[in-house]
């Protein structure tokens, strides 16, 4: 990796449960995953990227469902490809809710428990079902479950053997807000027990609210790794845009210009839009200058922190 040093996250304590070392994966001429290296340690890590970026390919390689075309992928110190024994310590929640509809929720989780060869499969099964709050519906056929319930039963099956590593592919897809909140608090509490959780998502807010650390994948490449906001702030070589509503936009603009805090400003009706090249400086100067000029700040909003803008900056660097 020749990337700038600040983007490299501090290496997690060895041995990291998940390690990708220059891993690539291609299908014919299509390169889904291009020379990716990273390590994932305990806690919640988000795998962020737009549709088709290669997130599923990365997760599939980690889970041993696909061999890397080049490079090395290890899970708990061993390559998972053609090595099913590693699944004693890993739980996977796949994206497609491909639960066999003829089984009951309890049957499905119980089957997972027995395939894990657990000494007390029934107890593990019921504990996992209770953990995801599905006990009342456990004896219904999965075909009658809602989307959120299916995601939860998949999670229960992935958790039944109490694995230290959990992989989730788009766990929030199709969940409504309430189901989303429930899933988030569940993942938080699992991480609090010291597990390694890696989940993929294309929705920024989810990752922001849940993950301490993100891996940003774009067009098959690892575009960034680390704390999302830190990454964003490190990219100081392009202007950041803020919209501001204040009691006196003109006076505030003048003060900001005078101090050199902004590169440009546009006043559109009630809304002031300013651009700055020095994010950290601007954030400190803005409240101070407003205070000095006796301007009330009603609204301050960064406008280009969308995932897409971050992605495009990251790949243009």
């Amino acid at each position, binding site marked *: 990796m020749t990337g700038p040093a600040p983007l490299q996250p501090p290496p997690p304590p060895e041995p990291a449960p998940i390690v990708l070392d220059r891993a690539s994966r291609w299908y014919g001429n299509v390169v889904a995953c291009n020379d990716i290296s990273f390590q994932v340690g305990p806690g919640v890590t988000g795998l962020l990227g737009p549709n088709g970026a290669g997130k599923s390919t990365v997760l599939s390689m980690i889970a041993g*469902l696909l061999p890397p075309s080049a490079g090395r992928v290890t899970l708990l110190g061993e390559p998972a490809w053609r090595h*099913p024994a590693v699944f004693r310590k890993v739980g*996977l929640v*796949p994206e*497609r809710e491909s639960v066999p509809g003829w089984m009951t929720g309890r*049957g499905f989780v119980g*089957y997972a428990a027995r*395939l894990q060869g657990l000494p007390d499969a029934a107890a593990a099964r019921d504990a996992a079902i209770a953990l995801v709050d599905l006990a009342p519906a456990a004896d219904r056929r999965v075909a009658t479950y809602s989307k959120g319930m299916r995601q939860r039963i998949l999670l229960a099956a992935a958790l039944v053997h109490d694995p230290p590593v959990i992989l989730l592919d788009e766990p929030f897809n199709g969940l409504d807000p309430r189901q989303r909140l429930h899933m988030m608090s569940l993942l938080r509490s699992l991480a609090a027990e010291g597990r390694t959780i890696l989940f993929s998502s294309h929705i920024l807010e989810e990752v922001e609210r849940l993950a301490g650390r993100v891996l940003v994948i774009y067009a098959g490449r690892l575009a960034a790794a680390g704390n999302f906001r830190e990454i964003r702030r490190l990219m100081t070589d392009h202007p950041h845009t803020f919209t501001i509503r204040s009691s006196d936009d003109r006076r505030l603009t003048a003060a900001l210009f005078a101090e050199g805090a902004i590169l440009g400003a546009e006043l559109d009706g009630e809304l002031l839009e300013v651009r700055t090249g020095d994010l950290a400086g601007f954030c400190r100067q803005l409240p101070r200058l407003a205070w000095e000029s006796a301007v009330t700040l009603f609204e301050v909003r960064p406008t280009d922190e969308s995932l897409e803008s971050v992605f495009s900056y990251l790949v243009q660097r």
Partner: protein
Amino acid sequence: MILTIAGNTLGALLSRRRALLMAVLAAVPALVALLARAYGEPGDVVQQTAGLLEASVLTALLPLVALVFGTAALGAELEDGSAIHLLTKPVPRWRVVAGKALAAAPLTGLLVGGATLVTGLILGGDRGAAGLTLAYTLAAAVGGVVYVLLFIALSVLTGRALIVGLIYVAVWEGTLAGLFEGTRVLSIRQYLLGLIAAIDPHWVAGTGAPLAPGVAAAGAVLVAAGSFLVAVQALERHQVSAGD
């Protein structure tokens, strides 16, 4: 572990409408036997029974039922993606294949063997064809294992296993075996007929000389074992396509 997989697979195979359809299909030879018994003309009962069992059970019912259950046992899961749950468990692949076969083969054997027994006994059980019926029932059970393993292997190798299997049964074992006798060495149906003929050559009604017992037995074992190994190998190499 194998039993766990087999039990689950049995549940999946029996949970669909196709299990019922297979049972209906299995009842056809017995109905024919009933009709023949009621309205039939006197003749060589042993020959008649052998003709009926060979034509209806060995040529049609056994491969069809084995084809449907064999391709559904693992292939259906691989196709709709639910196999991912099984493949992300600490289970060696040979156990997966064994578990799948342990569900589909006995189910096929039970259904087809039962149909054979009932059909043969109806037509000639009290008229000297009981031994022949037992031989065919045994052949159906053996055939169930061999066919099911072959079709499980096919279903791991290709998504169109059902069509490929149909072509194998109808064209290779059916049409071509009549035209080119040499293809019999690679025909499960001929292995089974060879095994039956080893007990009593009169029990095989079809044209052409049956395979020597040794060849038939070796062929059946080789196909079964080879299919199993191919299925395990293919499953180990099976890549779950990424959704993104």
